[in-house]
């Protein structure tokens, strides 16, 4: 008989007085969950800045961010599924939603949001679908690949082939409405992820009404940062393609570079704005806790200022917030500096999620003991595979693979003229 393992016992070490049933039950995948939904929400808000508020400079970035948000959307529920003790029973959440539970809202909010993003994308790319399918329809003796492509694009048009001026005008109107409705829904999607934690009254670190707002702000920061970073990577690939003359585009390397720098500088301004909001709220929360110093502050203080000092003040605040903030604030932002800054911002937001999720479990309900989390790096069974470094990394890589596949159907750059 194999030895029975208690969930959580494998990566938890206890110190001083901790209840016998307490372990780090919410591990790395629950860190990934708000991180990924945050990226989805942030990417969508970035794309809406153009569609709703008409910020023209973000036009190119807007389409890119919307497609990326769609790719991220599929990855967002995966951490939760991998975290479940019964992943195959996860469907129960949709079959028996229990409306007093914050997690139960996930199905409703997620699908509403998914429908909004999908329909916005459809309106944005409708003309492209019609053009491709019409071109393929007229083509004689299609190859098998073209046959399949024709079938896919025909289906994607949903039988609507009207691309007259009036029809396109209606499309634009629909996009604007969807993007407008999408902003509160995106904020809700992530705000409620913050609510999942903020409403746990048993946890002294989590319970604050500020939690959803803090989550939304840092979500937008991370979403914008990841969009900028991916944008830079895609542009660099484009430059390489132009140099090796394999590119279907007619732009020169200099033109691409010029466009890249100006777009990155423009988007960086919005990144800075949301960073200020996020940091202000986080510091407000910290100061307020220290100033009011209720019963549990004694143990929270030791966690924040002593035990987690490195991950909170060094990694999150200094390298994740302060350093990139200065980097973006200094004039003459270059692509190279932007890359470093963006990686630091993403790391900072990830560390914020880590410090909330793991930090919230690093002290006992007894307020007289501590727990340490040791993330499984090398898996030795299914549990340490899905709830360890490997599982978390797979989740992080997933949207990039999806983005690559989705961008085959929704071209991000070659489709310049419309809208």
């Amino acid at each position: 008989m194999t030895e029975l393992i208690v969930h959580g016992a494998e990566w938890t070490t206890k110190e001083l007085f901790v209840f016998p049933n307490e372990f780090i039950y919410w591990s790395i995948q629950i860190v990934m969950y708000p991180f990924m939904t945050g990226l989805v929400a942030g990417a969508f808000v970035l794309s809406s800045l153009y569609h709703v508020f008409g910020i023209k400079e973000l036009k190119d970035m807007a389409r890119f961010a919307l497609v990326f948000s769609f790719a991220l959307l599929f990855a967002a529920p995966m951490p939760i599924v991998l975290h479940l003790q019964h992943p195959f029973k996860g469907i129960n959440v949709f079959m028996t939603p229990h409306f007093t539970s914050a997690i139960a809202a996930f199905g409703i909010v997620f699908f509403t949001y998914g429908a909004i993003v999908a329909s916005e994308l459809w309106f944005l790319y409708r003309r492209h679908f019609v053009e491709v399918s019409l071109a393929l329809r007229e083509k004689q003796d299609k190859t098998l690949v073209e046959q399949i492509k024709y079938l896919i694009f025909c289906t994607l048009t949903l039988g609507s082939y009207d691309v007259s001026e009036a029809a396109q005008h209606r499309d634009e109107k629909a996009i604007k409405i969807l993007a407008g409705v999408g902003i509160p829904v995106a904020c809700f999607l992530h705000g409620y992820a913050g609510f999942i934690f903020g409403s746990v009254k048993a946890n002294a670190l989590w319970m604050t009404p500020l939690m959803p707002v803090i989550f939304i702000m840092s979500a937008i920061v991370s979403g914008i940062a990841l969009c900028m970073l991916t944008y830079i990577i895609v542009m660099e690939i484009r430059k390489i393609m132009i140099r090796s003359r394999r590119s279907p585009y007619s732009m020169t390397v200099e033109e691409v570079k010029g466009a890249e720098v100006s777009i990155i500088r423009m988007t960086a301004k919005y990144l800075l704005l949301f960073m200020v909001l996020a940091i202000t709220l986080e510091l407000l929360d910290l100061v307020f806790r220290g100033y009011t110093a209720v019963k549990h502050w004694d143990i929270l203080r030791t966690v924040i200022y002593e035990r987690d000092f490195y991950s909170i003040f060094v990694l999150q605040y200094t390298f994740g917030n302060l350093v990139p903030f200065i980097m973006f604030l200094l004039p003459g932002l270059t692509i190279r500096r932007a890359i470093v800054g963006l990686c630091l911002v993403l790391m900072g937001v990830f560390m914020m999620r880590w410090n909330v999720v793991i930090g919230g479990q690093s002290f006992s309900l007894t307020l007289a003991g501590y727990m340490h989390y040791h993330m499984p790096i090398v898996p030795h069974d299914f549990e340490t595979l899905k709830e360890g470094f490997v599982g978390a990394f797979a989740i992080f890589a997933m949207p990039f693979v999806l983005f690559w596949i989705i961008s085959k159907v929704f071209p991000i750059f070659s489709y310049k003229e419309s809208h």
Partner: protein
Amino acid sequence: MKKISRRGFLKIGMGTIAVASLPLSLKILKPGEARAAIEKSNVRWGFLVNTYKCVGCGTCVKACKLENEVPYDTPVTRTWVERYVITKDGRVLIDTPNGARDGFIDKKVMGEEVDDSNIEKAFFVPKLCNQCKNPPCVQVCPVGATYQTSEGIVLVDRTWCIGCGYCIMACPYGVRFFHPVYKTAEKCTFCNHRLAKGMKTACVDACPFGARQVGNLKDPNDPITKIILTERVGVLRSEYGTEPQVYYIGLDENVR
């Protein structure tokens, strides 16, 4: 043949599906289930712990693990006993080795042996699910797998629990855990299966000193109800608004 538009087809199709799926969404209740769902129960189970009587033998923990098939050698347990040692210089030492399944056989508390002359006071506190009137674990379950019976006991449906751990996080008393075999949320049920047969809980029956008692709080003549009504009792962590239904005689301010 009448030609049907795409819009018309979709409309009729959706309508047909909606009507056809109606019977699927209705669950037919058995008469007993229906009665139980409507009727108000005249039973509300409650628990009384007399900390003065507890000697920390751990028999209750042992009995519970065996009765409820919680794997014996795992650290998790539905009930446990804590030992508190408050020294003359004001330090509070607390421990519960293995949930006190084997009692307290080592004089060392938190790795420290306190000299008898240096002990201000020392006592034992048994812990179990408080079967709260306002249970946060039931509130947060995303699938409704954990629920409160009409007799006030919070149970878990193992067939429906998805194992998200939200209820474990929501419980301020740390009584919930994942069952090592079923991998679903697990908790003290006040031995609901025994109460239903008119028996006492396993821990109550096992306690040689009468430190644990279970009873019907809706019955004014029940011995534990009388004590709760007439004597000075306390509950754990009332600040969370959970309205716990496990009452303690001799609760100390140091109890966690």
